[in-house]
Structures are given as C-alpha cells and as structure tokens.
C-alpha cells in the first residue's frame, strides 16, 4: 500500500492551466519535499490533495483510498498543516485540540489521551490551559503539527509550515517532522520554497509551471551542485 499516490492530475482556472498531468508516489516512511517557485501550482496541488475542491482529471490516493471514490476514508488517514494559521486564537490549546478531535469523531477520554500524547511528542506538555494568543509563533506551529497527528494519520501534508518562523525554530520543526516520518513510518509531503529544509536522503519533487519537472532523491537530483543552485538552474528563479 502506497502512502500517497497522484496520477495524471490536471487543473485549470479558466484558461490558466495551474497543474498539468502531475504524477508521483510517496512511499510510507518517506519525507518528500515539494519544491517550487511561487505560482508553480503548489497551492492548487494542496487544495486538491485536501479536497478543498476536486479535479476533473487525475487520481489521488491516500494510504490506498481513492480521494474521488472514498473521500471520507482518504481524509480520515490524512493530517494537514495549512500554510495559513487555522487556530482559534482566543480559545485555549485544549479547546482548539478537542474541537479538532471531535471533527474526526474523537471525544471523551480517548480524545484527551490522544491530545496529551500529541502535545508530549511536540514537547509542549502542560500547556493545555494556555490561550493560543499567548503562544509564540513557533509554539503555534508546533501546536498545529500536534493537532494534525491526533487522529493518527498515515499521510501528513504540510504546506510551507515554517513561513514566518526564525531560523532555530524552523530547523527544530523540520527536524521533528523528518524524525516522525522515520520513526513512525509516516508519509510526509512538505511543500516549501526553502532548500535548506531538505535533507539529501529526502525524496524531492520539483514543480515548475504546473508540471512536475523532477522526481528523485535530493542527492540524485542536485548532483554536484548545491540544492539552491540546482533549483535555480532548473526553474530560472531564485529559491
């Protein structure tokens, strides 16, 4: 069973083709980085992967479940960290997490145990009573990652999750998610335009003008060049 599989996915906004025949696979336990300049189609791909809207052409499979035929099964196995913050700032950490748990059908002691375990993993135990507004940017992001894991997804999608964070926090969060994919066998798709978040052993997808320009490990693709230089050469734009 594959973690994430995308076949021949295309999408157009009127006359503008945002995605054009994109196909790739990400195996379980793999950290896959999706790199692309602005306007490459990353946001559209994420919107389709999270079923914000559906594509007339192509196929998406999450942990073996077809997004078009069994959307609820597919969504149940998927965790998402959106680029925009989606926490309710005026509610406590506890309220935010139990709201999410309930949206996934979890309640009571079972939900609570999962919430506490998720916070523990992200090194944020004992913060349940704090208002989200009082947390710093890094902790809010950690909280969103903890939240995305409450329902034990098989596939984790993160859309530029480190935007606006300082270098140390960025590194810590990137390392943590790499660790999750290795230790928990989680399939991770990490969209970014920052090449320093990608490790050599990671699978790398380079999206350019709606098409998948390259798919391989970062080490293979960059050859002798630094990843930023390779990306720049390929897309003709600064990473």
């Amino acid at each position, binding site marked *: 069973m594959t973690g994430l599989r995308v076949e021949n996915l295309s999408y157009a*906004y009127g006359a503008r083709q945002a995605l054009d025949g994109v196909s790739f696979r990400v195996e379980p336990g793999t950290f896959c980085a999706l790199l692309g300049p602005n306007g490459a189609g990353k*946001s*559209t791909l994420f*919107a389709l992967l*999270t*079923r*914000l*809207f*559906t594509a007339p052409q192509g196929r998406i499979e999450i942990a073996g479940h077809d997004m078009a035929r069994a959307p*609820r*099964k597919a*969504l*149940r196995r*998927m965790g*998402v960290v*959106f*680029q*925009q*913050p*989606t*926490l*309710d700032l*005026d*509610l406590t950490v506890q*309220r935010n997490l*139990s*709201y*999410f*748990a*309930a*949206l*996934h*059908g*979890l*309640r009571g002691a079972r939900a609570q145990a999962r919430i506490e375990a998720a916070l523990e993993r992200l090194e944020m135990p004992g913060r349940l009573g704090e208002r989200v507004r009082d947390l710093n940017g890094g902790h809010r992001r950690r909280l969103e990652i903890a939240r995305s894991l409450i329902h034990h997804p098989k596939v984790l999608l993160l859309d530029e999750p480190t935007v606006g964070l300082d270098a140390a926090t960025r590194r810590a969060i990137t390392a943590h998610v790499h660790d999750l994919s290795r230790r928990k066998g989680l399939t991770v798709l990490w969209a970014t335009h920052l090449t320093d978040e990608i490790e050599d052993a990671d699978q790398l997808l380079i999206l350019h003008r709606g098409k998948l320009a390259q798919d391989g490990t970062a080490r293979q693709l960059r050859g002798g060049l630094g990843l930023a230089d390779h990306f720049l050469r390929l897309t003709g734009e600064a990473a």
Partner: protein
Amino acid sequence: MTAWLAALAAITQREALRFIGQRGRFVAALVRPMLWLVVFAAGFRAALGLSITPPYATYTTYEVYIVPGLCGMILLFNGMQSSLSMVYDREMGSMRLLLTSPLPRWWLLVCRLLASTAISILQVYVFLALAVIFGIRFGWGGYAALLPALVPAGLMLGALGLALSSVIRQLENFAGVMNFVIFPMFFLSTALYPLWKMAESSALLRDICAVNPFSQAVELIRFALYQQQNTAALAWVLLSGLVWLGLAVWGYDPARGLIRKAAK
C-alpha cells in the same frame, strides 16, 4: 453516528464560545431590535392604526405588532453574521480545517447551521425578556409555542446566509449583502406593516411582501406567540429553507469548485 454528534457538539460549542467571547456582538444584537421597539414603535404608535386581523383577536398597539418582526430581525441578522464568519473563516483558513474532516460536507454545513440557529434563538428569548420591562408581554403558552416556530425560521435564514457565504469571495463584498439582501428582506416584509397596509399603497408591494420568505417567517412567529399555527407560513419557510440549504451544499461541493477562487 457518535462521530457525527461529536462534530455537532464541538461546532456548537465553538460557536457558543465565540459568541460569548464577542460581547459587543451580543449587545449589538440586542440593542438593534430594542431601539426599533422603543424609538421607532413609540413614534409610529400614534400614526399607525391597526385593524383586527388574525392572529390578533383584539385591538393591538404598534409596539406589540412589531415584536414578531423584531424577533425575525434577530434571526435574519444572526444568519448573516454567521455567514460573515464563514467568509472570515475561509479567509483565515479555519474553514479548510472544517472541510478536511472525514464527515460528509453537507453534515458539517448543517452543524454550522444548527449551532448558529441555537444562538439566534437564545438571543430572541433575551430580547423578549427585555421587552417585558417595556410592558410588552405575551402568555407563557405563547413563549413556549414560539420555540418550534423559531427553529425552522432560524434555520431558513441561516441557510440563506450559508448559501450566500458560498458565493461571496471576500469580506469586503459583505456590505453588498447588507444593501441587497438584509434591508430589502426586512423592509419588504410584514415585520413593520401588515400586508393590508402595504396594499393600501401598492398591490405590487403587497405581492412582493407576501412572497418574501422573511414575511412568512415573521408570520410564523407572530401566530406562534398567540399559540396559533400558520401552516402556509410554515410550509413556505420550510420550502425556502430547503432550497437555500440545497444551494449552500451545492456551493460548497468540492466538484463545483465555487470556493476554489478563495484558495488561489
């Protein structure tokens, strides 16, 4: 099924907490109808004579006549407010969180609708309690009979807001909703004047008022306050509520992609 109910409880709780957190919204929601009741109705009391038409069995003062319309106004404004928060949620991203829940999308929309209706109904009762201070009271039976009328009326107006939220791209467009939906719906209804009074000025105006679903919601509330059932109004409210809910579900259908522009 427990998963469905868990989502309903969580969405209702979130809406309630948000509402409590926004005290200004609560006060505004009550000040608006109270102003109409105390200032507008007092002025019109002398100018407007009301004949005895059902459900009224005796002569009625204008401030008593206007109360069901103001209850409707609370439901209408709240429905729109909830729709506004849907648009806000979409801009802020928390809508995406809701829509990636593995529950059917129509159910998630219904949960939002039920939650916002519950809050609207609570406000209507607080308004009616305040009206008592100004000497406007109904029978206990009327207050009890009102609840089953407020539910379909609130759901219908909430569904309208939901349908609108699926097509409104940005918060800025919301001012248009005020001008083109809320005001015409409120003023072209039986909230402020009875149909026969409208007919005195124009037959067309009366016909528009009669088919306005908001009029039907107001009449449903008016009859319920006197423990009478207005079946035609109920049917009209349910029918328009279903149409709008259908439109909302259609608007939020991922295949239709009406919300895709917001995602770009």
